[in-house]
């Protein structure tokens, strides 16, 4: 609405001409000036300027809705009342039915905790037919760090929705609905965002995943978070307006970085805690700083604490801060307990990654070894999924299967030799 042309706003002819003559053509240009500046620039009286400004404001202002109308509209028009169910019962309940449409949802967590796994599961869910609790639409997956694995995704699908994925041709159809984009630079990323804006209108896109946002932004600015010098660039604004206007959920992931001191977590009027253990006790914080944190609506923190993984609702306008224990099995992410524990105070935003510090092994590897999932062992399954070229690979969440994502999905028998 900001770019609306002044000449089309039905101003008196003479005023419209004056604006045109001074080269003020859009509402944005007119509203960036004060009344007096406009008076000087247009050489007209106060009364005319203010009536013209009132008219321009009225036109440029988006229409209002009552909250009731908003709610009715969402319930009627959108499947699941405007939420994408995550399949995790406790989390869905807390979020009033799942990841809401039209807002930015962020996943934060240390490397290998399961962010990508969660994203893949969400992509599957969005592509499933409505009868199975999905959104029956396409998914755009922007994979900045080249972590998306179609094999793993199919595996999750086969394990969690056996009746769909065992149907002939269904696996292909489901996987065919997920479009993976791999931008290698910020300009490519912006380009793909623009493509998406077009695609959203034409295709039945029901979910956009950006994994990870940090990789996109940290490419430009090295030091994030501590100062206010965050990228002035508005790529993520694009993301938000994308979500808002197409009314689809947008999920982004964010990495963590360590912070040594309690920098900037108190106001000047607060008394400094004296027993502050200065120094070596570094802790993790989300890689993108406070400015970014303000712009996401829902923040889910994935963390590991004394051998157990937790998913925490660190910021959500509709539920208290809850923590649910989870693990990652062959069927993807699943909750161990649907009744979350409520968190208090500083605990909400803390990010633990305990195992990592112990032996210097990747966090996930250690968890898997210590606590093999009750069903089929995840490690074994991973080994049977060795890439067909026979290369040796590191078995960590992120880099397994990396080079093989875009190959055609092998037949089921190959995935499950047993």
């Amino acid at each position, binding site marked *: 609405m900001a770019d609306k042309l002044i000449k089309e706003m039905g101003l008196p002819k003479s005023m419209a001409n004056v604006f045109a003559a001074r080269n003020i053509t859009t509402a944005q240009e007119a509203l960036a000036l004060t009344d007096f500046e406009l008076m000087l620039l247009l050489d007209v009286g106060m009364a005319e300027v203010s009536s013209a400004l009132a008219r321009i404001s009225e036109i440029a202002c988006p229409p209002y809705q009552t909250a*009731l109308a908003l709610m009715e509209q969402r319930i009627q028009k959108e499947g699941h009342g405007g939420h994408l169910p995550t399949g995790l019962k406790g989390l869905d309940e807390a979020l*009033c039915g799942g990841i809401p449409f039209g807002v930015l949802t962020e996943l934060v967590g240390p490397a290998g905790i399961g962010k990508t796994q969660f994203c893949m599961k969400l992509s599957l869910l969005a592509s499933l037919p409505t009868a199975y609790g999905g959104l029956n639409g396409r998914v755009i997956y922007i994979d900045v760090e080249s972590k998306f694995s179609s094999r793993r995704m199919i595996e999750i699908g086969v394990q969690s929705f056996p009746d769909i994925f065992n149907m002939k041709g269904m696996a292909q159809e489901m996987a065919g609905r997920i479009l993976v984009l791999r931008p290698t630079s910020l300009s490519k990323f912006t380009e793909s965002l623009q493509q998406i804006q077009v695609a959203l209108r034409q295709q039945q896109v029901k979910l956009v995943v950006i994994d990870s946002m940090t990789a996109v932004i940290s490419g430009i600015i090295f030091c994030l978070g501590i100062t206010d010098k965050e990228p002035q660039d508005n790529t993520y604004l694009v993301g938000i307006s994308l979500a808002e206007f197409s009314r689809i959920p947008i999920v982004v992931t964010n990495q963590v970085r360590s912070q040594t001191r309690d920098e900037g977590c108190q*106001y000047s009027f607060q008394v400094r805690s004296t027993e502050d253990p200065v120094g070596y006790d570094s802790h993790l914080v989300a890689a993108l700083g406070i400015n970014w944190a303000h712009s996401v609506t829902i923040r889910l923190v994935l963390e590991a604490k004394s051998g157990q993984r937790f998913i925490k609702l660190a910021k959500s306008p509709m539920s208290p801060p809850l923590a649910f224990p989870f693990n990652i099995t062959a069927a993807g992410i699943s909750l161990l307990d649907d009744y979350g524990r409520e968190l208090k105070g500083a605990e909400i935003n803390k990010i633990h990654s305990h195992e990592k510090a112990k032996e210097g092994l990747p966090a996930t590897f250690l968890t898997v070894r210590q606590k093999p999932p009750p069903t089929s062992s995840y490690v074994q399954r991973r080994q049977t999924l060795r890439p067909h070229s026979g290369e040796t690979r590191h078995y960590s969440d992120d880099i397994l299967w990396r080079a093989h994502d875009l190959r055609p999905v092998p037949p089921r028998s190959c995935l499950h030799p047993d």
Partner: protein
Amino acid sequence: MEVGRLPISASQRGKLIRAGYTTLSSLSSLSPSDLARELNVTNSEALEILKVASLNSRLDRTDGGHAIFNGAQTAWDMLHEEQLLRRITTSCADLDNILGGGINCKEVTEIGGVPGIGKTQLGIQLAVNVQIPVDLGGLGGKAVYIDTEGSFMVERALQIAEASVLDMVEYNDLLRKEHRKCQVNLKPNDLLESIYYFRICSYTEQMAVISYLDKFISAHKDVKIVIVDSVTFHFRQDFEDLALRTRLLSGMALKLMNLAKTYNLAVVIFNQVTTKYMEGSFQLALALGDSWSHSCTNRVILYWNGDDRYAFIDKSPSLRSASAPFSVTGKGIRNSASNHKRIKLM
């Protein structure tokens, strides 16, 4: 008063001065046609100039009496008026206490805090609470909610509205014991219907909506609170020109203040936080810089203190600086209970 200060166009002013009319008194005895001839303008233009001039000279006149200046009020009158004003409760008694009873009408209150502290929650709560009927000690007004971040959740508004209706019924039952008959016939949906929601996607729209509010509220006189959540968002992202930002922000603050005074309503604006290098360390501070911090009447900062959420009055001409705990529950903003019980939402 001089002609130079008249709100007329620059070329007309130039013509006036060239013709030798520098003071308003020199214009007072002129007829429009004389002026038109002398300035070489049309009759109607001359008439306009004289109208503006006479209006201004009337404002300028200092004839004694009660109100010396037009629009001025004595402090005594203001005191009376203030005592009559009702306040909008936050549903948290401790918070109301430090705010002197709630959010004040006719004032601009800025509320800031870190992400996830409950700013939006407080916003939704206030949008619901402003509708508490007059019989129950509320304002019985409506709310305008200006959402710049897209964080307004209709589901959450419904939860808060439902809880609020239950509270009202309960309170009403208490009242009725004292033989006062009044019926609560508000439904949660009615509460939602009285929240006018504007979704703003750029700073231009933000400027536009704030100028448009004047017209909107004069058509919807029962609006008693305007909530801007948050004022910061668009001004933080796509701004290179900081001088322009300061100018626009102060213009906006003035307009909001004007709205608050003219229509006797409360304006609540939410601000984000940033980190600032002060006294050798990084500390949290509200965003938008120092010049912005002058523009609001009251400033409240929400912060974490140990395991509890606290509100702190950072700036206020009438309230003393104090802090109070509050909590965000399934029902909305409530008093902080030391024993945190899990509140089930569904």
